[in-house]
């Protein structure tokens, strides 16, 4: 099965065309301010490079750090109102109270606390104040709010309040987009509400971005289906990504680590992915990124996402290098590398210029960096090596020497020897590992159901079967399926023994295992 993986990063937009797990063609292009034209260019170039072999591409998988970057860099975010159904409880810690102030100031489109919500045993806390919900909706319309996040106490156990509140909001304000926290999972009101609010603030951007992706794929003439990769290394159809952009958070690093594993044929290693802005260091365990343990912060906001355990340091191709005194980052010229770097005729010394001056890579016009003093170049390089080596050391879990896979457009900045590392491995196409990872993104299957009169083991086994069936139905190869998440919530208020069980599984796309035709 032929697929194209595209990774839209802060600096570069990469594309790789794969047949099974063979890379047919790969290209690296610049990310553009409008994103779309960069994607269009990458698609056009990779198709041209593949020539006749581009025939028969059935799917395009796009991985993007666009939504994460929007939160981290506080741009392109819409204002979102928060409607929390919890009073008289939870009054002191209002929505946004644990957000970084600058981000809250951008996103906060009004906070509405109303009476209602449930107890853990299913009883209403107090009856929901429907009038207050309707009033809040009218106020949101007056304020010109386009999205709202609704959260209610114990909504993962019973979504009644959120469902009813959403209904009222839609009646009063049909144009406002509603994100319900119960659709985003997990017990933990503050964290679930945070995620719902981020989702709501990204809805406008998600609509525009997915539309741009759809258009770019349509214009390519491939007739392929469009998928967007998610933070757990799986893909969803574009329509789903449009509603839940938060699920695409951190998909970039997952893609690049999985791509690195495939390209190097190694399943246990450290990975250092040097992009334009940062170097992301992670740990591959059995071909999968090691996951972060508990609460994960996105742009300073607490969430309960499952994300790869990553250390991001400010070393990338676009990293600004200062002289006198010598500084490396943290600022980067980002997607403006093509105009700002010396080798491209700009006036800012970047890590890319240092790499060119040191003869590690040939790019742009090398004569533009010829005047950089050799000791400055060496000192800057040494500083970057030091930062990377320290980061790798921090992410290692034990003293055993393991290989380090060097990937990303800035992989030339990784030193050839790193303490605690058996060897530094560079492989073909490593510059586009993330696009390769996107192309090989896995198929997931999920179930979230209430089981009655079953003991817990039976209910989970049943849910697991249902999730696997869903994954197989979606195109996963059964023998490769792994359970990545199990959550069960006892529903003591329902008659009979009842348990709400969520199980999520992932597997390789079935066709990837088929022999590649000669």
């Amino acid at each position, binding site marked *: 099965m032929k697929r194209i993986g595209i990774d839209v990063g802060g600096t570069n937009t990469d594309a790789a065309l794969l047949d099974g797990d063979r890379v047919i063609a790969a290209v690296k292009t610049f990310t553009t301010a409008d994103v779309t034209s960069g994607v269009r260019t990458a698609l056009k170039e990779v198709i041209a490079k593949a020539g006749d072999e581009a025939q028969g591409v059935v799917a395009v998988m796009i991985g993007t750090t666009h939504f994460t970057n929007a939160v981290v860099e506080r741009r392109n975010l819409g204002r979102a109102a928060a409607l929390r159904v*919890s009073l008289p409880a939870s009054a002191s810690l209002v929505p946004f109270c644990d957000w970084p102030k600058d981000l809250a100031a951008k996103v906060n489109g009004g906070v509405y606390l109303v009476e209602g919500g449930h107890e853990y045993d299913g009883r209403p806390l107090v009856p929901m104040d429907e009038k207050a919900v309707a009033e809040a909706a009218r106020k949101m319309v007056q304020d010109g709010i386009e999205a709202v996040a609704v959260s209610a106490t114990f909504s993962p156990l019973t979504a009644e309040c959120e469902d009813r509140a959403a209904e009222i909001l839609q009646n009063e304000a049909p144009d406002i987009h509603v994100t319900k926290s119960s659709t985003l999972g997990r017990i933990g009101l503050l964290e679930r509400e945070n995620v719902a609010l981020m989702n709501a603030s990204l809805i406008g951007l998600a609509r525009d971005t997915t539309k741009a992706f759809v258009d770019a794929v349509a214009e390519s003439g491939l007739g392929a289906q469009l998928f967007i990769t998610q933070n757990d290394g799986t893909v969803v159809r574009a329509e789903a990504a449009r509603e839940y952009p938060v699920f695409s958070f951190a998909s970039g690093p997952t893609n690049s680590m999985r791509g690195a594993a495939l390209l190097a044929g190694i399943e246990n290693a450290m990975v250092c992915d040097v992009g334009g802005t940062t170097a992301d260091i992670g740990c591959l365990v059995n071909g999968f990124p090691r996951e972060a343990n508990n609460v994960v912060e996105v742009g300073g906001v607490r969430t309960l996402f499952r994300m790869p355990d990553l250390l991001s340091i400010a070393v990338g191709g676009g990293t600004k290098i200062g002289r006198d005194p010598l500084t490396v980052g943290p600022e980067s010229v980002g997607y403006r590398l093509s105009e700002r770097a010396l080798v491209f005729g700009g006036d800012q010394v970047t890590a890319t210029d240092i790499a060119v001056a040191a003869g590690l890579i040939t790019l742009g016009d090398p004569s533009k960096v010829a005047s950089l003093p050799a000791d400055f170049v060496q000192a800057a390089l040494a500083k970057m090596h030091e930062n990377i080596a320290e980061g790798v050391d921090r992410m290692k879990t034990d003293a055993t020497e393991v290989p380090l896979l060097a990937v990303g457009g800035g992989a030339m900045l990784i030193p050839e020897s790193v303490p605690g590392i058996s060897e530094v491995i560079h492989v073909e196409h490593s510059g586009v590992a993330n696009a390769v990872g996107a192309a090989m993104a896995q198929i997931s299957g999920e179930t979230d159901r209430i089981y009655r009169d079953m003991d817990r083991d039976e209910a989970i086994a049943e849910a697991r079967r249902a999730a696997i069936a869903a994954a197989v139905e979606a195109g996963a190869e059964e023998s490769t399926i792994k359970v990545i998440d199990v959550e069960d919530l006892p529903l003591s208020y329902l008659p009979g023994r009842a348990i709400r069980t969520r199980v999520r599984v992932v597997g390789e796309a079935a066709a990837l295992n088929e022999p590649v035709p000669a």
Partner: protein
Amino acid sequence: MSAEDIEALAVGAWILGTGGGGDPYQKLLNMRLLYEAGSEVTLVDPLALDDDAVVAVLSNMGAPLVGQERLSDPEFALKPLRMMEEYLGRKFDAVMALEIGGGNGVHPMMVGALTGYPVVDADTMGRAYPEAQMTSVAVAGLRCYPLTMADIRDNEVIIPRAASWRWMERISRKACTEIGSVAATCKAPRSGAEVKQHGVLYSVSKAIALGANVLKARAAHTDPIEAVLSATEGKRLFAGKIVDIERRATEGFLRGKAKIEGLDDFAGKEMVVHFQNEFSVAYLDGEPIVMTPDLICLLDTVSGDGIGTDVLRFGQRVSVLALPAPGVFLSEKGIAAVGPRAFGFDLEFKSVFKEPN
């Protein structure tokens, strides 16, 4: 107490919580807001208390899981104290924590910040335990009443008298369950003399020092688990990944067990840790190897953060540590109150530490 002390306290208390007492995060958030608004908390040496000083013993009672959804609120913590003052007809001289473990270690700080009452550097558990009779003051046989309790609606409960600590537990637990399995309480007030003689002294400073040690290790990128061990004379028992959690909220408690698959040095082994709000007994490959009153702490292997029984998750990488218990619980009466049999395990208590002389 400085704002930094409060931050360190939250980290240390969560570790000493042995899985219970609630995640301190929300209470820490409230404290940050209170400090930003200009409040401050004074910590007092318990030995400086007058013998006839009256100290309010405060806690949040119930299933920690509920606290994840019904967020902490300082005004709600203050209510039972005001009820108790009205009932006694006098003001308190100071407040203290029932348990230093988890969010309950930070709980009296919120009341201290709102009222200006000093907070005593002591508690009655040196950790967190689920039931009323599991305190140093109960083991000492001190009076168990009165108790006040409030919920977020307009319900208030006063238990003027109970026949024993166990009766106090049963009655208050029933009331707590009815109002949603979470309640702010003010337990039987203690005199300065009682605190000095029967409290677990300097537990607040101990939690602050422990937390500061962990924060320092994190900043220096050294092993935070080592930082915990060095600050507490604890032992590392196991490290692995959680592969199964069974949890049920019953009768106001959160009960269940977590199964941990060994990693690295512990590969091929399996640990099962049982809990009732807090971790009570852990089995290694079927054999009980650590039990209460030894403190059983599940910590995030990477950050050294405590992990509550309410936030255990599939896939978490955890280290299991044992920390020594305060001496009062190692006595015969102490073991009877908080040993494995008190949690329904037919096991003879055996400490992982050397028996005290």
